[in-house]
């Protein structure tokens, strides 16, 4: 540094009227364009590819939903009726709870740290700077609400009018929730209250789910009964999407639609005028979380998405009461894992709440899918309990400090999640229906979760292969499948309808082999 030429003199006359947010964004666009290293056609090709993929996936998905809708609308069994009656009471509060929690975690109005420092800390109109992010949140929530609402009601076999009505109403409800989170974001006290409301909504969703799970069931063979009105001579459903029409006048949906749009528009407009009350720190915190999640998603590392969320949770928590361990050697690690898992009780509550999934699938009449649904729900429930193992497997220094071989450590750290898996699978047993299948589900859950938790991160230091995404480490694309592969392997005998002996032997061998093999380290 040089002081020879004298320091820069601050002259207030240099600084005049504060520019508009629009003019600054325009300046940034112009400046960035000068650094652009991609032509218009390259960008166009990417956009075309994305739109084409969305169209293909949408067409395929839409077709599947249409068939499932006609199948469900033709189901006249008591369990189908129960599911259709109960599901809205589960789905709506659950959606609201998830929306509130997710939006409060990411802001919902967020900005990168760079924007926070270089723009939001200046006197430029903050509301105008944040308005594009605000609009993006509202638009995304609206689209999500409409799609999820339509999907849930379509899968329940509702008519086209009801599906559209549900889509609009749920979209509008989620927009109201999003607006509420933006209002809550403006003070820590409001945010805490909004989180409490989300917890209450989660409970409100769990109660009907539990009641549904313990409804008396019919004989399995009569679960999916298509009335002759809806099936052809081969027994296949003949109803197309929305063929069951009710007698309701078309004016009612239109009125509901109009009211929902007006209410949402007014709320969105009113809250958009309060964006200047958002604190810079709350805006940046969400941006950091989104950046972390985007980084994890780009490396196709599902576990890392969980790491980002868990890391943020513990950072915000900051301080917990220390608890002394018990025992020595492996018992001490098992006890510590037990205490660590208890330290985040909400995860345990969510894990038990996920028990409703196999029962719901059973209630819907898709009996063949119950073990698969149970295994996936159980995997989601158990996997977060293996965060300790994941940390150990990603830190050779930690393993060295603990003084254990990584293979032994993996077995020890899987003890508590393993016991939880047994309890969870036992609770799901009535839905799964057979002891051998329940064992396969439990083995699949724990072996898959342990395999995913002990995966190495993708290394860009070694040899790379070329791909449309640029140079990537070999095996990057198989990363998301890690863990689920063992889960499928354990469930294969169930899905192939093999004898109970094979249903027990294959998962047992998979589990033992997985625990016997030493995980790879860098």
């Amino acid at each position: 540094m040089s002081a020879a030429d004298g320091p820069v003199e601050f002259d207030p006359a240099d600084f005049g009227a504060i520019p508009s947010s629009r003019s600054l964004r325009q300046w940034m666009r112009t400046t960035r364009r000068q650094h652009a290293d991609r032509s218009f056609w390259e960008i166009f090709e990417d956009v075309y590819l994305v739109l084409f993929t969305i169209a293909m996936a949408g067409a395929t998905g839409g077709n599947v939903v249409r068939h499932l809708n006609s199948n469900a609308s033709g189901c006249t069994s008591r369990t189908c009726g129960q599911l259709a009656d109960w599901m809205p009471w589960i789905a709506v509060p659950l959606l609201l709870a998830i929306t509130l929690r997710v939006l409060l975690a990411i802001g919902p109005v967020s900005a990168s740290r760079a924007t926070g420092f270089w723009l939001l800390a200046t006197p430029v109109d903050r509301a105008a700077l944040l308005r594009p992010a605000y609009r993006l949140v509202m638009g995304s929530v609206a689209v999500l609400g409409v799609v999820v609402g339509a999907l849930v009601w379509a899968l329940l076999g509702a008519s086209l009018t009801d599906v559209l009505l549900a889509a609009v109403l749920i979209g509008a409800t989620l927009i109201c929730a999003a607006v509420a989170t933006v209002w809550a974001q403006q003070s820590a006290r409001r945010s805490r209250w909004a989180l409490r409301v989300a917890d209450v909504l989660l409970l409100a969703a769990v109660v009907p789910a539990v009641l549904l799970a313990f409804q008396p069931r019919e004989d399995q063979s009569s679960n999916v009964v298509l009335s002759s009105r809806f099936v052809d001579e081969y027994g296949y459903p003949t109803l197309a999407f929305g063929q069951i029409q009710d007698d309701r006048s078309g004016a009612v949906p239109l009125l509901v639609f109009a009211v929902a749009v007006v209410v949402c528009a007014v709320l969105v407009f009113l809250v958009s005028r309060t964006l200047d009350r958002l604190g810079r720190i709350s805006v940046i915190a969400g941006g950091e979380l989104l950046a972390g999640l985007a980084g994890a998603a780009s490396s196709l590392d599902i576990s890392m998405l969980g790491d980002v969320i868990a890391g943020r949770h513990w950072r915000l928590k900051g301080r917990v009461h220390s608890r002394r361990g018990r025992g020595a050697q492996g018992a001490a690690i098992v006890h510590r894992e037990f205490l660590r898992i208890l330290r985040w009780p909400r995860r345990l509550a969510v894990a038990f709440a996920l028990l409703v999934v196999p029962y719901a699938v059973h209630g819907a009449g898709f009996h063949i899918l119950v073990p698969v649904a149970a295994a996936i729900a159980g995997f989601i429930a158990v996997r977060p309990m293996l965060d300790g193992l994941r940390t150990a497997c990603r830190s050779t220094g930690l393993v060295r400090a603990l003084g254990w071989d990584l293979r032994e450590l993996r077995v020890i750290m899987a003890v508590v999640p393993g016991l939880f898996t047994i309890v969870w699978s036992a609770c799901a047993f009535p839905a799964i229906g057979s002891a051998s299948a329940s064992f396969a589900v439990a083995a699949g859950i724990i072996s898959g979760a342990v395999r995913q938790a002990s995966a190495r991160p993708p290394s860009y230091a070694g040899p790379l292969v070329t791909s449309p995404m640029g140079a990537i480490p070999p095996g990057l694309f198989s990363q998301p499948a890690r863990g689920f592969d063992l889960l499928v392997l354990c469930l294969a005998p169930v899905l192939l309808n093999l004898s109970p002996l094979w249903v027990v032997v294959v998962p047992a061998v998979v589990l033992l082999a997985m625990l016997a093999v030493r995980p790879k380290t860098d």
Partner: protein
Amino acid sequence: MSKKAAPRLSVADLQHKYGDRPVIEGLTFTLAAGQAIALVGPNGAGKTTVLKCIVGAAEPAAGKILLDGVPIDERADAVRRDVATLLDDLDFFPDLTAAEHLDLLARAHGNASPEDLVDTTLHDIGLLPAADQLPGSLSSGQRRRLALATALVRPRKLMVLDEPEARLDTGGVQWLSERLVAEKKSGTAILFASHDPALVETVADSVVTLTPLP
């Protein structure tokens, strides 16, 4: 009888807690225009927390913080115009050069043609050769210099700096001392946390020593 001017910064009975544990209790001081106060103390004493409370990056459990006699609120235009901060929350746009970052900041503060100011500042802090470099290619020391430069291309009545000497070489710390003294002479109030006794000795008019609370 002339009315006594309000101090530029006034902190009264500031308290902050992490969970149930208090980290700052009953901190009171005032800082006048053209003066500098140094916060010193061991790691964990709460220096950065005090600075964060003042710039609105942390919420005090109790106490008053006034800027020119008005409660400080980071969301207020006047606060954003008058308070230049340098904490650990700085990040960069990956696709803007060092010069463009400063250009953007000066424009955002109302300087419609800041080219000369940016060039002079870059020269002043020794970053002129790196003016066209993107942030990813800057060394940590160069990033720190760029961070310091952010306080010099904008209006300021109060500078809040957290360990401004961090990652600077010996010459850089010497320049920083001279620069901060010059800022004081031009009427800027400076509140900074530091572990460098020489910098504190040269710049600070008074020292607030913080100790970790039990």
